[in-house]
């Protein structure tokens, strides 16, 4: 059941991201909804779920739009894993920490992409990169984060989302 719910969320996300988001962009900045999902799963369910979600969601994105397969799968998986490590170690509120972690996630993502771009030998102006991609995207994503996080928290109040994973 939970697997299907997650799969459905991921598919919905990729469809929304590619067809709906171009309409709500502001100055070329689009929110990174997959990052929101990965961070939400990381904070609510921990590393294993988050890295699987990141892997699957990233791979889907790679397959549909990427040129080199695996880059998004890799970075979302790593970010999901890393942020998932704080699961149940700190108290995560509803607003401040989710926003903090999603911004960290965006910065990590852009950094990994920068390394990738460097190896692809594409020249990009660094200043423009910071001001036109990283900051707008981080701000936009951060604004959306609390809403999605609230919904995900509600989702995790259903028993089927937590039942099997917590053995011991």
């Amino acid at each position, binding site marked *: 059941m939970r697997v299907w719910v997650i799969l459905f969320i991921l*598919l919905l996300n*990729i*469809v*929304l*991201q*590619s*067809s*709906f*988001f*171009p*309409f709500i*962009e502001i*100055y*070329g*900045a*689009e929110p*990174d909804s*997959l990052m929101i999902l990965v961070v939400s799963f990381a904070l609510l369910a921990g*590393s*294993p779920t988050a*890295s699987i979600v990141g*892997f699957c969601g990233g791979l*889907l*994105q790679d*397959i*549909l*739009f*990427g*040129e*080199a*397969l*695996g*880059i998004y*799968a*890799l970075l979302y*998986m*790593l970010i999901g*894993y890393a942020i998932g490590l704080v699961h149940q170690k700190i108290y995560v509120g509803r607003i401040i920490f989710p926003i903090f972690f999603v911004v960290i996630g965006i910065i990590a993502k852009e950094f990994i*992409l920068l390394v*990738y*771009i460097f190896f*692809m030998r*594409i*020249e*990009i*102006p660094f200043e*423009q*990169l910071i001001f*036109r*991609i990283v900051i707008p*995207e981080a701000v936009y994503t951060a604004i959306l984060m609390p809403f999605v996080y609230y919904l995900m928290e509600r989702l995790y109040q259903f028993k089927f989302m937590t039942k*099997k*994973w917590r*053995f011991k």
Partner: protein
Amino acid sequence: MPEFLKKHPLAIITVVSVLLIALIIVTSINPGAMTKVEGFIGQIVTPAQKFMYTMTTRVVNFFIELQERRELESRYAEQKALIAEMEKQLMRLEELEKENQRLKRLLEFSNETEELVLTGARVIGKNPGSWFNVFLIDKGEDHGLSVNMAVINDRGLVGRIIEVGPNWSKVRSIVDGQSSVSAIIERTRDNGQVEGNNNISMEDGTCRMIYLSLESDIVPGDRVITSGLEEIFPKGIYIGEVISVERNKRDLFKTALIQPAVDFRRLEEVLVVRTVRNSNEKK
């Protein structure tokens, strides 16, 4: 699997990371290696995407931009009329082409066949994020498209196809940082290479024309068209207008900033140009 994952999470993450890095390297060296899988998944997701895209377009048109709606609609009609007119012109062009071929044959200049055939396609999705300016169209192999065909709309050159699936294709636009098109200035006939300016989003999309000779006198406002040298793009497709010309001290050539004629923000319908040549010999 969860138990095992819980015991050795870091090991698994490391293994998967290494595998993914290998996959990245393989696919970036040899693009198209995974096309079959992509085709399969693309085929499943495409209808949903198409549906969503049409739905959101409708919602945007009907509810949000009530005021802009009339304007948009008139623009839409205008574009349709333009496309129709363009198709007419292309038919005329085809006629001229045929005549040209006949004359060529008569003169024994060349036996090359150059023929423009067109198919229309609808844009069904743009890549998420702002890094690569690649978008999807709803026609693919089944409709006779193949890699490296040129994509245009009524205003000018849009890009070229980089991957095809059964019922979809990926198009890399000319404003993408990895795109490169051989072009000439219409007035002075100077050769150059038009490259996507950056990887910043489509909205600030401008192109750069490099390798222009120092003697060339190019002024802002000059029109840039394709040169047809690479055998991907047919000759004479309008690309855009020169905004400014500059020369870096260390460079041995001039660089011109170009505003593409195509409005990449409002890309809904495109036309695919297939030439007989690049469907015959696939490289």
